[in-house]
C-alpha cells in the first residue's frame, strides 16, 4: 500500500515542558494509516500531554510534528478538520440530550441537516440507543456515554481519531464492547490513536508505545514486546520494564 510511505502521524523529538518539569521528553514515533496505535503508561507518564499536542490543543515546546500531513505549529486548524478527539475527561454536554449533542457537533463540523439526521439514526442504531435519543446524557450509564462520545468524536468521518483513556472506570466486559466498536471503525481505514493504562486494552492494539516519566521506553507490537521480554502477557511486560527502571 502506498499509504504506508506517508505516516499519518509523524513525530520527531517532541518535547513539552511545564516550567522546569519535562512532561514529554524528545518523543519520536510514526503512526501508519489504519493502525490502532496505543500509548501505554502509568498515571502522569505524559500520555494526555502528548495527545493534546497532536490534536492542536496545546503547543509543544519543541519538535517536528505533522498530523494528517499538517504541521502542528502552523496548521492546527487544518488538523482539527481531519481528526476526532475523545478526551479523558468526559466531555459531552450532560444537560442536553443524546440527539442534541449529536446535532451540535455535527453542526459545528459543518454537516448538513440531512447528514446530521442520517448519521444520528445510523449511530443510534449501531449503539442500540434508539430509545435513548431524547435522554439527557447525565442519566446514561458511563459505558454508554463513552460509546456515544466515541461515535460523536467521529461524526464528521475523520481520518484519525484520538482516544485518551476512553474506557476509564468501566469493567473489562464493557471495555471489550467498546473495543468491538473501535475495530469496526478501524476497518474503514481510520487511524486510531489510543492511550490507556489497562493491560487488556494494550493487547488489542496493533502497535504499542510504552511511556514512563515522559519518555518512550519501548515500542513494538504487543506480540514482539512479549517475546522480547519473555513474558506471558502485557502485564508482565509492563512489570519487567518498570523493574528495569529501578
Amino acid at each position, binding site marked *: 500500500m502506498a499509504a504506508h510511505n506517508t505516516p499519518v502521524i509523524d513525530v520527531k523529538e517532541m518535547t513539552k515542558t511545564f516550567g522546569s518539569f519535562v512532561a514529554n521528553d524528545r518523543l519520536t514515533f510514526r503512526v501508519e494509516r489504519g493502525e490502532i496505535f496505543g500509548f501505554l503508561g502509568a498515571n502522569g507518564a505524559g500520555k494526555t500531554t502528548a495527545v493534546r499536542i497532536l490534536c*492542536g490543543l496545546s503547543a509543544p515546546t519543541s519538535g517536528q510534528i505533522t498530523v494528517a500531513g499538517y504541521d502542528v505549529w502552523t496548521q492546527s486548524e487544518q488538523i482539527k478538520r481531519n481528526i476526532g478527539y475523545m478526551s479523558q475527561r468526559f466531555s459531552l454536554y450532560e444537560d442536553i440530550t443524546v440527539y442534541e449533542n449529536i446535532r451540535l457537533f455535527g453542526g*459545528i463540523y459543518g454537516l448538513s441537516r440531512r447528514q446530521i439526521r442520517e448519521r444520528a439514526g445510523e449511530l443510534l442504531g449501531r449503539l442500540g440507543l434508539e430509545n435513548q435519543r431524547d435522554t439527557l446524557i447525565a442519566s446514561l450509564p458511563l459505558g454508554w456515554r463513552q460509546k456515544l462520545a466515541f461515535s460523536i468524536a467521529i461524526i464528521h468521518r475523520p481520518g484519525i481519531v484520538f482516544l485518551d483513556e476512553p474506557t476509564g472506570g468501566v469493567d473489562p466486559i464493557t471495555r471489550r464492547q467498546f473495543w468491538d466498536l473501535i475495530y469496526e471503525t478501524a476497518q474503514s481505514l481510520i487511524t486510531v490513536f489510543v492511550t490507556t493504562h489497562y493491560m487488556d486494552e494494550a493487547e488489542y492494539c496493533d502497535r504499542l508505545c510504552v511511556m514512563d516519566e515522559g519518555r518512550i521506553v519501548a515500542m513494538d507490537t504487543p506480540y514482539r514486546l512479549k517475546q522480547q521480554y519473555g513474558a506471558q502477557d502485557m502485564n508482565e511486560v509492563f512489570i519487567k520494564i518498570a523493574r528495569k527502571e529501578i
Partner: protein
Amino acid sequence: MRTILFLLQKEFLQIFRNRLMLPVIFVLPLVQLLILVHAATLEMKKIDLVVVNRDLSTWSGRLAQKFTASPFFRVQDAGNNQEAAQELLRKGQADMVMVIPAGFERNMMREGEESVQWLVDAINGTTAGLSYAYASAILADFHRELLQETGYSAGMDLPSGINVRERYWYNPKLNYKIFMIPGIMVLLVTIIGMFLSALNLVREKELGTIEQINVTPIRKYQFIIGKLIPFWVIALFDLSVGLTIGYFLFNMPILGSLPVLFAFASLYLMVILGLGLFISTMASNQQQVMFIGFFFIIVFILMSGIFTSTETMPAWARTVNIINPLAYFMRVIRMIILKGSGLTDIGREMIAIGIYAVLAMGLAVWRYRKVT
C-alpha cells in the same frame, strides 16, 4: 453563521433546562428593583437648609417658600444673620445654607439675573451632591416661574461651581425614586449580563467540555458570539422588565425614545458581555471570575454616578470614568428616560460606547485560546 446557530441552539437549551437560571432571569430583576429602589431612597433624609434672607422682598420670600414647600428640605429661617447660619453648619445642625443677597429682587427685575450664595457641608459627598441637584432644580423652577410672570429672558446665575446641566434635569417633582430606577436598571443588566456570560464560559472550562469545542475547526469569533448572544438577549429582556415595572409600579415617566434607549443598551451590553467573557478567558474557575468580576464591577458602580451626577466628582475620577462603561449608560439612560434626550443629545456617548463595544469584543476573541 450556521455554526453560530448550532451553538445558540445549544446555549438556549441549556439555559432553559437549568432550574436555577429561570429565577435568575425572571425573579431577580423584580426583587432587585423593588428592594433596591426602596433601600436607595430611604437613604435620603430631609436636607436641613438654613435660609439667610437679606433682601426681605416678595421674590426672596417666595424663593424661600419654594424650599419650605419641597418635601426634600427642612427649612430654618436665620433672618439675615449669616454668622448664626454658618455656626449651625459648623456644628453639623445644618447641611446647607442659602444666602439671598440684599437687592435680589431689584437686580432680578433690572438685570434679569442675580446670584444666591450656597454654603454646603460637603462631608457626605453624596448628600452634598444631591442637595445641590435638588436646590438647583428648585432654583431653575423658580426662575421659570419668574420668566413666565415677567417675560424676562435672561438667565439667573446658579450657585457657582455646580454643574449647569443639573438645571435641565427634568424631574419636576424631585422624586428620588424616579431618579434611582434607571440607575438600578443599569446595575441589574450589568450584573446579570457580565456574570451569567462569564460564569457560563468558565464553567465549560471546569467541566472540560470546552476541550471538545476547541478540538473542532470552529472559529474563535463564532464561539464568542455564541456565548454572547444568549446573555445579550436575556439582559435586554430584563431591561424591558425593569422599564415595565418602573413605568407601571413607580409611575416613572419615559420621556425619550425607547428605540434609542435599546440601541444604546444593545451596544452597552456588548461592552459588558465582552468584558465578562474576556475575564473568563483568563480565569480557570468560577471563583476567579467572581473575584475579578466583582472587583471591576464595584469600582465601576461606585464611580458610575448612580447616586449623584459624575460631574460633581473630582477631575481624576472623571478621567477614570472615560473607561467606565457604567458611567456612560448611567448618564444616557437618565437623559433618555427622565429628560427625553434624543439621538443627537447622546451621539457622543453612543459613538464612545460603540468603539468600546468593538474593543471589548475584540479583546475577548483575541484572548480566547484554542491552543494553550
